[in-house]
């Protein structure tokens, strides 16, 4: 690899790659937030957004956010995991290459091919563009997703290889001998446990996604192969749910690694911690039927299981990770700066977002809340205030911007966090008023809800833009990888 372009003073292809991941993600986040803002402004009647463009933007916003979260989360995981295992830098670059080619295809499919079938490509919508898009546009979109999947597959396989060659097996990576047996060996560090969980669920998810994407592609060009809509939906939600969940599970490694540095208190990997991550591994894969609670034809047991998993899935987050963060910070004499502040905020965002999520996962509630604004309400809470805060916290950390934050940083922190909470709460309140999600045009009585939401969205985008600029202008101070 050619290192001459690496950023001084610490050359290294891996550092350059991690910074490329983070830089690209910072820009894409801001861009996607602007797209989100445009949608909210459209719904607020402040912007004349034609419906086709709205839905194209919606598709780009969804696919873009999920994809870039996966990319940025994997950078965090990679950065810390490399402290413990031997990862391959070439694979990191390869993933980025696959990702960017996938993005080109997806954007082409959406804005040239007119594809506006939503990032969830709910079958058989991709083949029913009704003139707005044709099979080629849809195929570009789906092909782009496939390419991105291949890249991530390579990355997770390399992570698996590295973990297995050091610890022997993935079960050991999850600390099973310590959890279930009487092993006295030191359990693997938190980063390894989390990475093992993530690679397990994501490889499984990518395989499911790769099967269903190809089947939908076949159907696009050979409609006589009629794919079962319910089975497809199961696979899509399995894949989609696992992937978006895993973004947070890999980014949280930053919290495990950085908060102890600040508080001089270790984040102990004990049985409770290991048990929580093993439970998460299973629950993240088994919880997806909570997306299908309104598919009455699904087997009742699967749906009840979806409700139960959705409730218990909150345990490891609330009782172990968020509680652990609180414990480690409480009366620690921590110095509040951008990394510690954003990471602490992120734990709050994740924990608080679990509440509306779990409540919506109750069948009786889902019956009036499913596909209302309540749903984006909960996940915007733990993506904006949780995941993205986590990622920007890490970006401040890696560019050495700890210590006393500047005025702009502080301002951005408060604009971003209050805007994020406010935006999510307006989503939730809209859900309370039964406003459906994914509507280009809102009924007059709902417009009043979208207007404050648009303002909050603008605040979030502004805050994130300041974070991004601060990151990109501090790259030269970046830590060694």
């Amino acid at each position: 690899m050619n290192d001459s372009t690496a950023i001084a003073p610490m050359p290294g292809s891996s550092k350059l790659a991690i910074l490329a991941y983070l830089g690209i993600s910072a820009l894409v986040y801001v861009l996607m937030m602007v797209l989100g803002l445009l949608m909210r402004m459209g719904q607020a009647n402040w912007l004349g957004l034609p419906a086709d463009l709205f839905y194209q933007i919606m598709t780009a916003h969804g696919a873009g956010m999920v994809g870039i979260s996966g990319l940025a989360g994997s950078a965090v995981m990679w950065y810390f995991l490399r402290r413990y295992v031997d990862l391959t830098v070439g694979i990191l670059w390869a993933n980025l290459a696959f990702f960017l080619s996938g993005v080109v295809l997806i954007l082409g499919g959406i804005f040239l091919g007119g594809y506006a079938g939503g990032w969830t490509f709910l079958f058989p919508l991709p083949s029913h563009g009704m003139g707005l898009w044709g099979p080629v546009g849809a195929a570009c979109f789906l092909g782009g997703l496939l390419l991105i999947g291949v890249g991530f597959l390579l990355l997770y396989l390399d992570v698996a290889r590295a973990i297995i060659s050091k610890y022997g097996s993935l079960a050991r990576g999850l600390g099973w001998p310590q959890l279930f047996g009487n092993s006295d060996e030191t359990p693997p560090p938190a980063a390894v446990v989390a990475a093992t969980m993530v690679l397990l669920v994501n490889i499984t998810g990518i395989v499911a996604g790769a099967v269903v994407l190809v089947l939908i592609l076949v159907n696009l060009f050979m409609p006589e192969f009629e794919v079962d809509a319910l089975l497809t939906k199961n696979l899509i939600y399995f894949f989609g749910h696992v992937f978006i969940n895993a973004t947070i599970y890999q980014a949280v490694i930053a919290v495990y690694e950085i908060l102890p540095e600040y508080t001089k208190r270790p984040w102990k990997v004990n049985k409770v911690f290991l048990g929580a991550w093993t439970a998460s591994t299973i629950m993240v894969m088994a919880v997806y039927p909570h997306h299908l609670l309104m598919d009455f034809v699904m087997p009742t047991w699967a749906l009840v299981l979806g409700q139960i998993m959705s409730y218990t899935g909150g345990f490891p987050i609330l009782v172990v990770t968020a509680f652990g963060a609180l414990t480690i910070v409480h009366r620690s004499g921590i110095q509040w700066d951008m990394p510690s502040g954003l990471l602490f905020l992120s734990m709050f965002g994740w924990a608080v977002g679990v509440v509306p999520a779990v409540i919506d996962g109750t069948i009786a509630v889902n019956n009036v809340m499913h596909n209302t604004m309540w749903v984006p309400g909960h996940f915007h809470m733990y993506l904006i205030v949780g995941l993205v805060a986590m990622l920007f916290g890490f970006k401040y950390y890696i560019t050495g911007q700890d210590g006393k934050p500047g005025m702009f940083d502080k301002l951005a922190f408060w604009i971003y966090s209050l805007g994020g909470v406010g935006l999510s709460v307006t989503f939730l309140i809209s859900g309370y008023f039964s406003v459906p999600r994914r509507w280009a045009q809102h009924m007059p009585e709902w417009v009043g809800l979208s207007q404050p939401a648009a303002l909050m969205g603008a605040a979030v985008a502004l805050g994130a833009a300041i974070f991004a600029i601060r990151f990109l202008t501090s790259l030269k101070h970046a830590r060694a990888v």
Partner: protein
Amino acid sequence: MIQDTVLVVTLVLMGAIVAAFLFVAINAKNDGGEYAPIQGRAYAIRSKLFWVLVVAGVLITTVTTLDLPYAATRGEMAGVDKQIDINGKQWYWEIADTSAKVGETVVFNVSAGDVTHGLGVYDQDMRIIGQTQAMPGYANSLKLTFDKPGNYKLMCMEYCGVAHHAMVSDFTVTE
């Protein structure tokens, strides 16, 4: 209305989490010295919290799964006054009958002709009283009892293409 309960419970629980984080954030800067005692107290609280959540979870799960909206789809039509077939298409609803009487228990047999849609039934205050997915190849049966007369709306809840938001039909409940 169930939405009110949901909102109150959500706000209370979110409030509790806000309080916990604020409490820790405010106390964070004071150095409490040794970590072990702090950790010990925290673990004690955590195990209590765990058991509270477990017990609450068992109770809530039991109560909320006693009455599931799936019976009609499984063919239980006892006490049903009327069945109405609804077929979702890009972008309109084919509805066999657009009216019912107050007090009637209606089962909507919902399917789709092209792509997946979602049938949401909105009351005159524009609040959802029930919904189900409309999928090609499947029929979901949504059972509802209309207590109040008025103009209800049937709206699409699952994104189905560029005129998704225009997929609204009227449904009248008379005395």
